[in-house]
């Protein structure tokens, strides 16, 4: 069973420390949620786990499958089984969704076997068609330029489509609910739930409790001032829904 183990993670951007000693362990098959007010470092955690070059790790380790992934490039982390659904997916003009996904799949195959010829076109088409049907996406979507001119809902659905196609073992969903209306939220959540199971560990990063009505976590963590300050079960999210973050601030502000 793979697990992602974050130990005493300290991260800075431009010399300013954002994460100040974060510990968290996610097992495959578990769904965790990290909640917290804006500016506490939730997205920094997501980007750092994926290996964005702007985030400097000053201390700590992140273990996955026997390796400290902090020493790996973003593409190696992805191929190892880590996935980040971006809060703001990036447009790649001129590159179609299909072409992009085929490149991503083939990169995995070539990393395993440099001689690999790549996925056969009919096999790829079938796979894509199946995943797109699951997410109720129009087939024309595959021919559009990736995230270029996509609506908020389309972007998030495209993220889940990528997740469905690449089959990660640990998926980090960074504010996946932002910018979604209720219908899009339901489709995206259903997609995530369909992919959930003993093979997938999920870390949902969210500001609001709303998404957790659809994606049910077993573990809820509250983040404040660059570290996790409270952990509990689903009831913790409901408590936040009712009482807001003020009590957390009062309790931990001096720490931050």
């Amino acid at each position, binding site marked *: 069973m793979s697990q992602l183990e974050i130990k005493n993670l300290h991260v800075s951007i431009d010399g300013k420390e954002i994460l100040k000693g974060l510990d968290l362990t996610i097992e495959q098959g578990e769904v965790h949620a990290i909640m917290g007010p804006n500016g506490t470092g939730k997205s920094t955690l997501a980007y750092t786990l994926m290996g964005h070059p702007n985030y400097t790790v000053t201390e700590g380790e992140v273990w996955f499958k026997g390796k400290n992934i902090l020493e790996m490039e973003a593409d190696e982390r992805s191929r190892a089984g880590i996935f980040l659904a971006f809060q703001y997916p990036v447009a790649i003009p001129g590159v179609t969704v299909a072409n*992009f996904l085929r490149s991503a799949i083939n990169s*995995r195959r070539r990393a395993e076997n440099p001689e690999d010829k790549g996925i056969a076109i009919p096999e790829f088409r079938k796979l894509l068609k199946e995943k797109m049907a699951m997410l109720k996406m129009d087939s024309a979507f595959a021919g559009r330029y990736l995230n270029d001119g996509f609506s908020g809902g389309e972007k998030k659905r495209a993220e889940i489509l990528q997740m469905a196609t690449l089959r990660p073992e640990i998926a980090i969903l960074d504010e996946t609910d932002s910018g979604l209306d209720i219908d899009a939220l339901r489709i995206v959540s259903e997609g995530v739930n369909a992919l959930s199971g003993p093979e997938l560990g999920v870390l949902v990063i969210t500001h609001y409790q709303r998404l957790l009505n659809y994606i049910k976590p077993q573990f809820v963590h509250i983040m404040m001032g660059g570290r996790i300050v409270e952990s509990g079960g689903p009831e913790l999210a409901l408590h936040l829904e009712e009482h807001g973050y003020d009590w957390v601030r009062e309790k931990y502000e001096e720490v931050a």
Partner: protein
Amino acid sequence: MEEKPKVVVSSRSRRSETAAREFAFVQADIRAGVLSEYRQRAWQAYTRAAMPATSDEAWRRTDLHGLPTESFRLPQPGAYEDLPPVRADLLRPLADGQHGGQIILLPGGATIDLDEKLAGQGVIFTDLLTAEQKYPELVTRMAGQTVNPEEGKFAALAGSLAQNGIVLYVPKNVRVEAPLHSVLWGPGAYAHLSHLLVLVDEGASVTYVHESASPDEPGLDTLHAGLVEIQVLQGASLKFVELQSWGKHVWNFSHERVRVERDAQLDWIFGAIGSHLTKNFSELDLAGQGAQGRMSGFYFTDGNQHLDHDTQQNHLAPNTTSDLLFKGALKGRSRSVWQGMIFVAPGAQKTDGYQANRNLVLSDQARADSIPGLEILADDVRCTHGATVGKLEQEPLFYLKSRGIPQAEAEKLVVEGFFDPIFQRIPFEGVRERFQDYIVAKMSN
């Protein structure tokens, strides 16, 4: 044929201290034959014109200082026999379907192949020397018609001394389905001077691919100076694909102009990846009412290459449409220049002109200059332009890498995506594939 538009030539070249030295060519190098009067005139223009210097506006960004003028010699007949043979991959069809004809121009020779059926329909597709012998009237009707040798030193040089060339004539209302293909293969330390003449007669249509190439021969000094003169007569249609993959030691110069007459159409595609230095003047004359011309350019430079494309879209008649898109990527310490002009003549009302140049600079030492221009002398027109120079950005690359795509592959995807709008304009799968191969080759070296 409609009345010929006046080509205004402003000669700004003046002798200056920064000019390169003169070539070693002599008047006796002029070939005798049906074009000798034209060639003598061109020679006079050649001797009058100074070597271009950076004080000349058109040459401001392209310095010929290093041009080893005195070392260039013209190839003798049969010179190709001792030189590297033409690369086989250049002979494969690029446009849809098998070739209707193929010509390979070699230093001091040529091989010619034309489908008998096309020959039977009156299509002429042959090399310049053969055409001078067999079709003297046609050749005199075509040479000097769209490019005036007075337009520049290199135009005059190619006009007076061209050793090689193509003559393509498509008779009235003949629609040639199979594409025609020519390769100018220029190995060796020579001056390759070429002259292309194309006349697509009224109501005719044809696809023509012309490719200039040579092997990389470091240490050699090789020159190409070329003229391209094309006329697309009333209601005719030409798809013209022009590719250059000269070796990285080649100094490459060309003056090209296509005149498009009433209701005629031109689809002109450029692909440039080779040469040490290129200065190319490409002009579109929309000479008759309703004429349309599209120009699409692909270039990719690396090392210390310098490619300078000077384009001009001349709207000389009402209701004419032009649409230019040039896109280029740069690596290493290379440099590109694109200087474009849309000119709308007085009275050319209801003109629709567009030009855009986009550059993607892939290294800190590379530099792209992009200079659009408009000169509009009519009042009821729509002309737009755009020019951009951008860099490879971190966020798209990180996004692709986060999906498992390695850095080099991610860069390639972004670059391919950048060029996609050019691919979308190219009606030939083979040409698109060639450009994709160019990208792979440039990205991986």
